[in-house]
């Protein structure tokens, strides 16, 4: 006794034994997976209609009512292997790809190439950490996959960078943070630039399963890898804190310079400080953006290659604007500096001191501010503007006095003296 199921094949209902049904279902699914064509559904429909026709013939001939396993096996022999059927449809894909080449030799060549990995259409590769082939965290393996270089070569480059100047270490840590791990079949396919369609994912899952069964140790770090992993983690923590500190200092210093520059600019242009300040900080922002925009674009491009036109246009326009802003601000600052040689000398001295200690930095700030004040008084063009800038300059001095040391005060008084003697 056997259980049967009802199936609808090409619009006809068949009773079919359970075992025969299982075999037929696998067969049809296999054909479907092997077909490489945009008209896949149409071909499947035709094939199913043909199977239905053959079932009818078999049933009529044997005077039976139920399709059994023997009939299904016969029909499978008659129709041929899913691979053979798929191979015929592969040519279709090849034809449309290579329709431009009429040369026979080229066609043969294309056929040889397309006969290996069937439906793995190449799309843009995405950057992921290749955790299946990792030594430390899969950064080098992922980069290699993305660029198309051997991972070992990339690893050698990284090691050289670490030994030569230590930059490799930082780069590795940063990349580790920003690169997502290829921890799913879909991501592994995206990493290799293969379209993550349902069938490809199924194949990929089967493939990784086999690979992991074959050598269960692969994909895990070696002892050396483990050691380096630990070192990098420790280093990352050790490096991360000072790095944050350095960034904080840089931002503070840059901000103060911009602030001082702003007050100078404000007085030079004879503007109320409020306007001068926003102009100066705009210049500062511009010069930061000039460096930052290409960096951000590079990182985004590495992580995800799919970016629209709008993104590029926005980035380029922003970059051009900030470049213009930064250049004009620098031009203005330097032309105004060269107007007054003595002032310029003094500022140069202060800049030299600046490299020695941070206190001098504050002194420089102060000097710049008072210089701006002096400039304004010298101009004496507009009594109203004078009043406003002087008031504002006082505010600046107040806000900056916190860190001022004795040294700085000396510099200020010196500069004051110089300018007044003038």
């Amino acid at each position, binding site marked *: 006794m056997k259980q049967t199921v009802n199936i609808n094949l090409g619009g006809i209902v068949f009773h079919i034994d359970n075992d025969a049904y299982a075999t037929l279902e696998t067969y049809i699914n296999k054909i479907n997976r092997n077909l490489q064509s945009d008209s896949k559904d149409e071909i499947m429909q035709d094939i199913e209609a043909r199977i239905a*026709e053959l079932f*009818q013939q078999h049933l009529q001939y044997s005077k039976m009512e139920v399709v059994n396993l023997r009939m299904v096996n016969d029909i499978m022999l008659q*129709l*041929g292997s899913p691979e053979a059927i798929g191979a015929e449809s592969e*040519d279709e894909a090849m034809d449309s790809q290579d329709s431009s080449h009429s040369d026979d030799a080229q066609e*043969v060549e294309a056929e040889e190439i397309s006969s290996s990995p069937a439906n793995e259409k190449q799309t843009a590769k995405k950057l992921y950490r290749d955790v299946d082939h990792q030594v430390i965290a899969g950064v080098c393996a992922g980069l290699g996959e993305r660029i198309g270089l051997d991972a070992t070569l990339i690893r050698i480059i990284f090691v050289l960078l670490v030994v030569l100047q230590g930059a490799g270490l930082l780069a590795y840590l940063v990349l580790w943070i920003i690169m997502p791990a290829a921890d799913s079949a879909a991501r592994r396919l995206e990493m290799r630039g293969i379209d993550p369609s349902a069938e490809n994912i199924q194949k990929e899952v089967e493939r990784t399963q086999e690979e992991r069964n074959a050598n269960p140790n692969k994909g895990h770090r070696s002892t050396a890898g483990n050691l380096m992993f630990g070192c990098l983690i420790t280093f990352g923590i050790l490096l991360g804190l000072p790095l944050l500190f350095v960034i904080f200092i840089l931002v503070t210093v840059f901000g103060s310079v911009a602030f001082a520059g702003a007050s100078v600019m404000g007085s030079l242009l004879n503007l109320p400080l409020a306007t001068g300040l926003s102009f100066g900080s705009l210049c500062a922002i511009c010069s930061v953006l000039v460096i930052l925009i290409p960096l951000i674009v590079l990182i985004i491009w590495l992580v995800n290659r799919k970016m629209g036109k709008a993104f590029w246009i926005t980035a380029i326009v922003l970059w051009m604007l900030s470049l213009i802003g930064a250049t004009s601000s620098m031009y203005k600052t330097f032309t105004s500096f060269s107007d007054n040689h003595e002032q310029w000398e003094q500022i140069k001295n202060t800049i030299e001191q600046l490299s020695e200690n941070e206190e001098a930095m504050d002194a420089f700030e102060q000097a710049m501010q008072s210089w701006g004040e002096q400039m304004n008084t010298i101009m004496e063009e507009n009594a109203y503007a004078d009043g406003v800038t002087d008031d504002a300059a006082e505010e600046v001095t107040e806000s900056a006095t916190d860190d001022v040391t004795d040294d700085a005060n000396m510099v200020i008084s010196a500069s004051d003296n110089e300018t007044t003697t003038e």
Partner: protein
Amino acid sequence: MVENIKSQMRKGILEYCILEIIHQEEVYATDILGKLKAANLIVVEGTLYPLLTRMKNAGMLNYRWQESMAGPPRKYFCITDEGAALLQELEKEWDAISNSVNTINKAALPA
């Protein structure tokens, strides 16, 4: 290798013969299969369906649905003008090829 060469040779001829069959009369896939099998040109049936769809997509063939006494409607194929033009070229090419092969075979014969 041997199989590969053989199948390469057959592939081109298969399309030519299918065009020829459809040119003679409107047929549905099973009719074509019958004729190809009788001529020993096809071994497994399954490969015909992707081929027909490809030829249809390339504009050589067209089809229409026709009611059938035995079951659901069938796809009857007919040749398009484009297909007919191609068929003429293929006929010439076939003559040329068989001439070439014959010439070489005769040259190889003694005397």
